[in-house]
């Protein structure tokens, strides 16, 4: 922990059993998502004749309607969902922090215009716009990527090339990450702005200004380190929000597309094979459990972090 945090955050966090359990669970899920495939070697896209096999030793989570191994699918879903959540949250972090910093630091009329804009965006139903945007841009992005092939770096005999055609299968995910990141930054911007407003009148900022430091330096050397803790808290709370939005879209069939899977698509598949005649419960309950545990852990961790960094927020 560096000096910008209030003293003893880590020790306070360590005393919170819920937070520690959440941290350990998150570690386990991350490890099994990214390292699991090296231990449990099943291809998530390999179809077989063994349809709807209940959980067994060979297939711990059973198999789905195409005979694919459900555990491998859940691990792939975890990779994609976590990746989308993390990168979407990082984009929203960059956009929101920059926006909030500028708005709060410049102040005055600029500030009120910028915040009015955020208010307008708040009242727009974001998920609906998101649905429309992914549907509208996906095809164009695919067409554009298809056939794009160029070498951008040559060192000796090694060529780094950008091969658009091989990425065509992943356009939906890229678009999802971008649009989710560009949609979830509003709260971050508001919080950062509020913090900057209260910080910029403090003496150390006035001192820096009196010493003739540039605005850029004041923002990055003096203001930003003081924002770090609050930004980290909201990052842990933005990740589950982005994961949730992504799986919402995928559940509706408008997000991640086959053959790739995310938790949303797995849940949607799972809920379709539940019927009174024959219910293949393992296709629903396992993805549901893994996803719930992840989201729970992230939210508990975010809450605990907030308590640890800002004891006043605790009632």
């Amino acid at each position, binding site marked *: 922990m560096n000096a910008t945090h209030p003293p003893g955050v880590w020790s306070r966090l360590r005393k919170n059993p819920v937070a520690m359990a959440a941290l350990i669970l998150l570690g386990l899920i991350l490890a099994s998502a990214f390292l699991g495939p090296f231990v449990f070697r099943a291809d998530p896209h390999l179809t077989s004749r063994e349809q709807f096999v209940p959980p067994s030793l060979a297939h711990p989570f059973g198999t789905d309607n195409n005979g694919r191994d459900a555990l491998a699918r859940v691990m792939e879903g975890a990779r994609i969902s976590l990746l989308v959540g993390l990168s979407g949250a990082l984009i929203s972090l960059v956009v929101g922090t920059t926006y909030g910093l500028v708005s709060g630091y410049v102040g005055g009329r600029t500030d009120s215009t910028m915040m009015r804009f955020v208010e307008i965006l708040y009242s727009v139903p974001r998920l609906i716009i998101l649905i429309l945007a992914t549907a*509208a841009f996906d095809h164009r992005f695919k067409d554009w990527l298809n056939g794009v092939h160029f070498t951008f770096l040559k060192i000796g005999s090694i060529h780094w090339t950008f091969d658009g055609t091989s990425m065509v299968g992943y356009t939906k995910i890229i678009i999802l990450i971008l649009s989710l990141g560009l949609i979830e930054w509003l709260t971050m911007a508001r919080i950062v702005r509020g913090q900057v407003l209260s910080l910029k009148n403090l003496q150390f900022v006035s001192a820096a200004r009196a010493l003739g430091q540039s605005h850029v330096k004041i923002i990055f050397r003096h203001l930003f380190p003081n924002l770090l803790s609050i930004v980290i808290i909201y990052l842990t709370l933005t990740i589950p929000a982005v994961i949730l939005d992504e799986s919402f879209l995928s*559940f509706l069939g408008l997000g991640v597309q086959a053959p790739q899977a995310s938790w949303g698509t797995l849940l949607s598949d799972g809920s379709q094979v*539940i019927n009174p005649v024959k219910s293949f419960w393992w296709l629903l309950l396992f993805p549901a459990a893994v996803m719930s545990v992840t989201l729970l852990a992230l939210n508990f961790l975010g809450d605990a972090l907030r308590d640890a960094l800002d004891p006043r927020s605790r009632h």
Partner: protein
Amino acid sequence: MLVVLFCVVTVTFFLVQLMPGGPFSSERNIPEVTMKQLLARFNLNGTPWEKYTIYLGVRPNASGHYSGLLEGDLQLSTKYRNRSVKELLGNSLPISGMLGLSAFVLATVAGVWLGTIAAVRHNTPTDTTAMLAALGLISIPTFVTGPVLVLVFAIWIRLFPVGGWGSYSCLVLPSITLAGPYIAYIARLMRTSLLDVLSQDFIRTARAKGLDENRVIYKHALKVAILPVVSFLGPLAANLFTGSLVVEMIFNIPGAGSFFVNSILNNDPFLLEGSVIVYCTLLVLLNVFVDVIYTFLDSRIRLE
């Protein structure tokens, strides 16, 4: 408010124009003349700008009439031929409304009740458990709780129907699913706010003059503590609306939510735009409505 609506309509319209293919491109072998007539009949001729102005109703369409949004015409659906968007939405909106309303009532009543209990029994195991459960409920999305509830209460224990629409028992599981996260959210909001109010001076006065605890809480404290919940009702309604997309899909409810997804998949421009407009209008109206209620409840706001 109107600015927001106008922006949404415009952005939606042009995003739909960007979608690949036309509404009739899946049907093969349509002669060019027929195609032209089809497009003309559905007011889909011309440049995007022409289509946009015809849709708004500030430019006459192919048959020379002004018939667009300003005149209250939402055009025809290109998928369900000969049925207007208005008719389709008119049939399905009451169903979505019914579902939304029951979830709304459930979320508010249960949330306020649970939050009050947690605040009154502050720092007891009841409080801690309730708040942990609430955080749990907030984290788990409806598309997890919905199918799991179906599995447990409709398939393993055959208590409620799996899905569909028609009887009151069909309403139980969808409403619980839809309201779940918001029960938890309102309970947390209510608890924080009530704890805040209970530490204020006028509550001490009420206790000092010998009112019994129930009267203090239910007559004096609740009235003030409920304000944050009221201001959340607008966003709540908004969230219930978007949430109903998924819930209607899980439970096979023929509501308006399914039009969103299907009209994107079927490339049905006017149905999509119509649903977006109706949803956004409802959301904006609800927000205004909540603002009005708020000023009535909290007289301090009017004074400022």
